[in-house]
């Protein structure tokens, strides 16, 4: 216990902190500039000086550790004089352009000058001139205003871990540069904007458009881009989001955001937003009214249900819709349409992996607290780049690495390139081999956990069957490090699920997770992939992950919903699509997703959907899928709705309506109106009302209320019943990897600046990354004499695409990478697939391609 006195007030500290922090804890404010809560002390600006008894000089409180018996004064004439002098120094070169500076009103320098600054200037010389820089997308930099606090540099290096900003030159000529993604590794997270106390780094999205004090409202909400679910405050004026700002102390992102979260909100105002329902008349979709459109849908679905039964109807839910939307959707499908054919695009990754892991290891296994990564001494990253799929989760891995953790990466993760400590290079598409080998090595070294779990038996059996020995670069080291570590996090990306033999990697990872008692994390590209499952939008589970096949569970829901639920498991996503092609599936209801674009093999998907008798699409844009629909219903984007998302840690968070719009209707509201028309009344008043029902029926969300969600952290099981246990028996399938001997393959890239297709309607993100690129390795580029930006035509057996290349030294020589975000230029469209027989996810590996200049 440390006791010190600040301004006559006695302060007790449990753990050693700086004098500045001690003062803050006691409610005493000391002015600072270079200090920032997320950053280590720097001690450069000298504004925070205080007097300490028995110390001859004034001390900077931000760097001075509080010590027992210290007597500190934070205000005196001498201190005020020094602060005035410091501010005078800072002002001599700082342009006095507050009237045109966007920071005015929230500028820390301005505030300090108001309180301590000199009334007039004595500097008559010429000020330093620095040209304003527009070299970067999104960021406007005005280093003339810079006060060299270096907060941006430290933020970029120590917290974001991108190291795109450095101090250039020295002394008074110091400027903060270079940023630019073109040749430096700027990730456009914009955390430097948060860090900058003055107007040196600003977002061009809001520059010159408003003053911070001219806001109509500030809404505390969460980001709808990925499964991390960062918190932020959206500032709104005239029902338009002007900017989003993360707040320190809020959410698990604690003041940080990624490019998508910070700059990606513009899609909501895109001119292509659907405004009224559309009905197909021949080849055209024509504007209609809600009544006509809903009547038509109700009529058609009833007709199909009556003639073919519920099994001929399928529903595709959305991981961008809320828990409330999805819950209402599955209830509608199950009860009003009489089918369990409900799935989502998550089946291509998250849902498939989640089901497999939960089946083997028990419910909740794949959902751990992101903060745990930072405290790991080893992080194993498999099949995806956390730093681009879930950027803020990626930061935890970087933080762990900085704190000395070992980081091993199997797969393509350029965002961790400088952080990985172990290099493992499995042959192309054979990651499962190395994981299996690793599992056996770990098993042989450590044995099973001896608690006789099904997984232990399965691993022993697997061990017996396994014959070959895998000898791969880095395997030995990886095994040793894993065995030496006490606290391991495994971060599992979807690249390994989208394999014909994806279940092999999943089994091996499950085994490793179990034997090493590791924390498992699933990367989640969309905001509500966990929620869509929890809500029951899966063919085999009712809300709360209760197996449909168990009559007791089914009965409970039937009691609550007062209608029977079909007792056979429904079809998975790809089965529904394939069923459409075969003619078994007559009607599909797609809420908030775009399978034509987001699934492999475009031609096939289109043909399948065209074979349907009736297709309904509910969306905010006229997507490739909506274009094929018989009825299109305009919905709301996430900033326009209230509801909840459940992130990849199974944290339930409130999405608060940020802007009002007249464009569309809440997804749950559309569905419930439709349901009423089909004879099953759903009379919800608002999203909260839907949650009231969920919290009554779903064991995972038991007794959850919006009030509690906004008051405290809510992770399921929430006041819940016990979770489901693990599998009783696991069938071990021993397979060998296929051989891949084509010259070149196409693989899917998950870019940092885009997600789905909404990012492309966001001017901020399009400014950062305006066009798709085919990423090719250095060697291939040399062989084909390609330079960054050259155009090529890539051909696969499902089609070809003309695209520009960018050279990426981290790309394996035998693959090229392409994203699936840009209209007409999505990689999935030209890739074929084979279903993984176990997970039912489409495997897209091994798509041979050729490349030519064009």
């Amino acid at each position: 216990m440390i006791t010190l006195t600040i301004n006559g007030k006695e302060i007790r500290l449990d753990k050693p902190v700086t004098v500045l922090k001690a003062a803050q804890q006691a409610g005493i404010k000391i002015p600072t500039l270079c200090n920032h809560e997320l950053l280590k002390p720097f001690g450069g600006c000298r504004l925070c000086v205080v007097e300490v008894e028995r110390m001859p000089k004034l001390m900077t409180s931000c760097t001075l550790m509080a010590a027992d018996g210290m007597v500190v004064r934070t205000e005196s004439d001498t201190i005020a004089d020094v602060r005035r002098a410091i501010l005078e120094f800072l002002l001599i070169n700082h342009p006095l352009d507050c009237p045109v500076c966007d920071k005015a009103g929230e500028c820390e320098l301005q505030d300090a000058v108001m309180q301590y600054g000199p009334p007039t200037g004595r500097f008559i010389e010429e000020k330093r001139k620095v040209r304003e820089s527009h070299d970067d997308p999104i960021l406007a930099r005005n280093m003339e205003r810079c006060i060299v606090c270096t907060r941006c540099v430290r933020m970029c290096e120590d917290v974001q871990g991108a190291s795109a900003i450095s101090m250039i030159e020295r002394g008074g000529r110091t400027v903060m540069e270079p940023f630019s993604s073109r040749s430096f590794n700027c990730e456009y997270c914009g955390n430097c904007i948060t860090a900058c106390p003055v107007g040196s780094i600003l977002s061009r999205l809001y520059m010159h458009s408003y003053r911070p004090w001219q806001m109509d409202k500030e809404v505390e909400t969460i980001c709808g881009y990925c499964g991390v679910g960062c918190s932020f405050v959206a500032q709104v004026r005239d029902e338009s989001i002007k900017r989003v700002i993360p707040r320190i102390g809020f959410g698990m992102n604690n003041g940080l955001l990624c490019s998508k979260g910070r700059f990606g909100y513009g899609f909501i105002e895109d001119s292509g937003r659907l405004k009224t329902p559309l009905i197909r008349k021949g080849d055209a979709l024509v504007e209609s009214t809600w009544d006509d459109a809903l009547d038509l849908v109700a009529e058609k679905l009833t007709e199909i249900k009556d003639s073919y039964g519920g099994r001929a109807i399928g529903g595709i839910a959305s991981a961008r819709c809320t828990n409330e939307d999805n819950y209402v959707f599955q209830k509608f499908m199950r009860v009003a349409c009489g089918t369990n054919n409900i799935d989502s695009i998550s089946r291509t990754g998250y849902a498939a992996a989640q089901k497999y892991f939960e089946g083997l290891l028990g419910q909740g296994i794949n959902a751990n607290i992101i903060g745990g990564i930072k405290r790991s001494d080893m992080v194993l990253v498999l099949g995806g780049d956390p730093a681009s799929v879930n950027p803020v989760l990626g930061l935890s891995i970087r933080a762990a690495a900085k704190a000395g953790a070992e980081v091993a990466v199997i797969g393509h993760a350029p965002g961790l390139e400088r952080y990985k400590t172990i290099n493992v290079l499995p042959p192309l598409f054979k990651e499962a081999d190395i994981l299996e080998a690793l599992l056996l090595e770990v098993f042989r070294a450590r044995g099973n956990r001896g608690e006789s779990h099904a997984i232990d038996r399965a691993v022993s059996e697997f061990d017996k069957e396994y014959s070959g020995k895998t000898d791969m670069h880095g395997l030995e080291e990886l095994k040793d490090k894993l065995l030496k570590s006490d606290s391991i996090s495994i971060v599992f990306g979807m690249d390994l699920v989208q394999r014909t033999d994806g279940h092999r990697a999943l089994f091996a990872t499950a085994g490793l997770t179990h034997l090493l008692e590791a924390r498992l994390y699933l990367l989640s590209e969309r905001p509500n992939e966990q929620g869509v499952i929890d809500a029951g939008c899966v063919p085999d589970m009712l809300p709360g992950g209760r197996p449909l096949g168990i009559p007791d569970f089914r009965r409970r829901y039937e009691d609550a919903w007062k209608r029977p639920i079909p007792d056979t498991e429904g079809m998975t996503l790809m089965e529904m699509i394939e069923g459409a092609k075969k003619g078994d599936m007559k009607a599909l209801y797609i809420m908030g997703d775009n399978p034509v674009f987001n699934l492999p093999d475009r031609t096939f998907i289109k043909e399948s959907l065209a074979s349907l008798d009736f297709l309904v699409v509910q969306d905010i844009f006229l997507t490739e899928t909506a274009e094929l629909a018989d009825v299109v219903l305009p919905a709301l984007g996430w900033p326009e709705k209230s509801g909840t998302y459940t992130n990849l840690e199974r944290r339930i968070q409130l999405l608060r309506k940020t802007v009002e719009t007249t464009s569309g209707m809440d997804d749950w509201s559309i569905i419930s109106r439709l349901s009423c028309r089909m004879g099953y009344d759903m009379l919800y008043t608002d999203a909260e009302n839907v949650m009231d029902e969920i919290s009554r029926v779903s064991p995972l969300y038991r007794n959850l209320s919006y009030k509690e969600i906004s008051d405290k952290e809510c992770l399921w099981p929430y006041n819940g019943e016990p979770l489901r246990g693990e599998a009783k028996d696991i069938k071990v399938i021993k397979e060998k990897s296929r051989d891949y001997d084509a010259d070149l393959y196409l693989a899917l890239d998950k870019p940092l600046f885009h997600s789905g297709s909404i990012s492309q309607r966001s001017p901020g993100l399009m400014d950062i990354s305006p066009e798709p690129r085919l990423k090719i390795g250095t060697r291939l580029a040399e062989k084909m004499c390609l330079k960054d930006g050259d155009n090529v035509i890539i051909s696969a057996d499902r089609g070809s695409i003309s695209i520009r290349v960018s050279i990426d030294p981290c790309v394996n020589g035998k693959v090229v990478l392409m994203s699936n975000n840009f209209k007409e230029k999505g990689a999935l469209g030209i890739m074929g697939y084979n279903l993984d027989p176990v997970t039912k996810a489409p495997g897209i590996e091994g798509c041979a391609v050729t490349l030519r200049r064009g």
Partner: protein
Amino acid sequence: MLKEIEDIKAKYPDTRAALLPALYIAQKEFGWLSLDAMKAVANALNLPESDVRGTASFYSMFRLKPAGRNLIQLCTNISCMILGAERLRDLLKDRYGLLPGGTTEDGRFSLVIMECIGACGTAPAMLVNTDLYENLTEHNIAEILGKYK
């Protein structure tokens, strides 16, 4: 160049420490530190490019713009100044058209004004490339520079 950098890495417990030596090597190889040269160093040491650039720009002996074939580093700090270094500086301007920080048109010389180069006892002094010349006068400086083509 890469081989040389590899050897240097071994002398330190951490690869980053090889940055200054590596920048010297790159500067010798390319004459100056272009963005490409710094990128090569960044790759060789697995460091962020911005860090390499930030570090290089801190030190006055790293040249971030193209330089002439011969680099004159003239000291004008106090001991040299009071013994006439400024007259030498003017002479370089008048005779060679050489301004501090500049390069002659024929690319023969670049001039950098140095802070103290530790030759105060034999002031004024300059380094031409890595050769030290002391007790400079308006007469002997022309003769010395004549040796550099």
